[in-house]
């Protein structure tokens, strides 16, 4: 393991050999278990997956191209619509890139609030994933329990930003407006509430024997595969790939906060499930540290009405609920960016699906794609 990893073997294993008499079944674009408009061209050998080709582009909206004709403040609302479940982290990514380019120091209050919102979004996103993952495997009950707890977070969002899912709340230099006075109180209430409800998640799904049989040993991903395909986020950390951007390249307040990176080595679907469950608990720990100590102060730094970036290239990465999101801005000194590129986590996470699903049953393909937690609009952008 200490020697340099030989990637070529991993990639050769993944080469698809198409033949004329392949039995092809299309999964999607309207298949409920693909969680969006994703088409998987699945080649079957009986009930076993021989190979699988993902076809993307059904929800391509040219967000990168549209960004080139928008000012830096206007791009924010587009990034919401990439990975809608971690909208706040997407906003933060581009705001941090602009702030670094202009060398603006945001007020301390903003940093605390941003971390709190990051972690709330992460928990809310994992709630939805837990609900939908259970539902993919046929356990409809989980959907109601996950949604019940997610509603508590969305109520906090609605109180402060006025919207539940796509809150363009972060702007370059700070926040859109100050958070609601009850913000801290409601976060602490939520942390206490969710700590009490977490054992229910364990009883309902984590300890269930049927769930174990469906997920254990299914979709094994080695550490080498994860690195070769650039699988990040909880899916990569389930294979022992230490890729938490909050630890490896801390941004905002993360280097002052005490939290641990969840790492497991087994690499099957059940491990990826466990990583996310433990991440929820870890997020609660971060929320506890942050919510009590939000300092008073301004909610935004002093900014010019028209933001112009100095000529150059800027890169910023953040950890969303699904992995590493990178924002690459090329500026030519005007008020519009010359080029914006988003390195989205789900794009890399999707293309490992073929390697994981080979030689598995078609029912396990649903398990594996569920355990990777794909959000389709983030793949197409």
């Amino acid at each position, binding site marked *: 393991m200490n020697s340099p990893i030989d990637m070529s073997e991993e990639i050769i294993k993944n080469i698809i050999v198409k033949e004329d008499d392949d039995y092809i079944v299309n999964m999607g674009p309207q298949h409920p278990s693909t969680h969006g408009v994703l088409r998987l061209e699945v080649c079957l050998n009986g009930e076993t997956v021989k190979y699988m080709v993902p076809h993307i582009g059904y929800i391509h909206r040219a967000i990168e191209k549209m960004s080139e004709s928008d000012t830096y403040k206007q791009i924010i*609302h587009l990034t919401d619509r990439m990975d809608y479940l971690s909208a706040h982290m997407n906003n933060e990514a581009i705001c941090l890139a602009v702030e670094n380019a202009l060398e603006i120091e945001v007020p301390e209050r903003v940093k605390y609030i941003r971390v709190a919102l990051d972690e709330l979004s992460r928990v809310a996103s994992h709630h939805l994933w837990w609900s939908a993952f259970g539902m993919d495997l046929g356990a409809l009950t989980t959907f109601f329990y996950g949604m*019940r707890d997610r509603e508590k977070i969305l109520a906090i969002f*609605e*109180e402060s930003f*006025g919207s539940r899912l796509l809150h363009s709340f972060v702007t370059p230099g700070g926040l859109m407006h100050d958070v609601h006075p009850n913000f801290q109180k409601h976060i602490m209430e939520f942390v206490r509430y969710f700590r009490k409800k977490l054992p229910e998640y364990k009883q309902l799904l984590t300890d*269930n*024997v049927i769930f174990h049989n469906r997920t254990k040993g299914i979709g094994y991903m080695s550490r080498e595969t994860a690195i070769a395909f650039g699988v990040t986020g909880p899916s990569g950390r389930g294979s022992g790939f230490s890729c938490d951007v909050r630890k490896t390249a801390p941004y905002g307040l993360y280097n002052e906060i005490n939290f641990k990176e969840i790492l497991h080595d087994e690499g099957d679907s059940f491990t990826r499930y466990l990583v996310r469950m433990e991440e929820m608990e870890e997020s609660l720990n971060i929320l506890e540290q942050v919510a009590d100590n939000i300092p008073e102060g301004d909610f935004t730094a002093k900014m010019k009405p028209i933001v112009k970036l100095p000529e150059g290239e800027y890169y910023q990465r953040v950890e969303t609920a699904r992995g590493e999101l990178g924002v690459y801005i090329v500026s030519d000194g005007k008020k519009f960016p010359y080029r914006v590129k988003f390195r989205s986590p789900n794009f890399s996470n999707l293309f490992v699906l073929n390697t994981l699903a080979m030689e598995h049953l078609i029912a396990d393909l649903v398990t594996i794609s569920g355990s990777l937690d794909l959000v389709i609009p983030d793949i197409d952008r």
Partner: protein
Amino acid sequence: MNSIIEYFTDIYKGVRSLWAGMRVTGKYFVSPGEIVTEQYPENRATLKMEERFKGEVIMPHDENNQHRCTGCGICEVNCPNGSIEIITKRTPNEEGKMVRVIDKHIYHLAMCTFCELCIKTCPSNALAWGQDFEHAVFDRSKLNKVLNKPGSSLKKKEVKS
């Protein structure tokens, strides 16, 4: 022999984990105090949205049918999707001078992405969020709204004393 023991252990574990899950759902089944569902169309009379809720963009008018929009067009420039259209006209004011006033402030709700930039950048605070969220209509043209009410005029700036 081992396989037989394994077989029965599996059954025992299966029944036990099933029981653990059923206990959770059963607890909620018999305790009606924990119901979290909101009966939406029935609770319309008591349903109150949050103060900051982003329903739609509105232009508040006072009791004299006066608003604060000067027709400067900053919201139109800042809107990323072109959902605001401002039509101005020239009319004589009290002193007989021709001045530019707002004729129609057209808001295309169908195109709006609720990014809040128009409200945030308005220099005279003429726009605000409305609480109405039931936007379903039978015809698309009904979503193009004129925000300034007919016959409304610009509110005079209060002189600071």
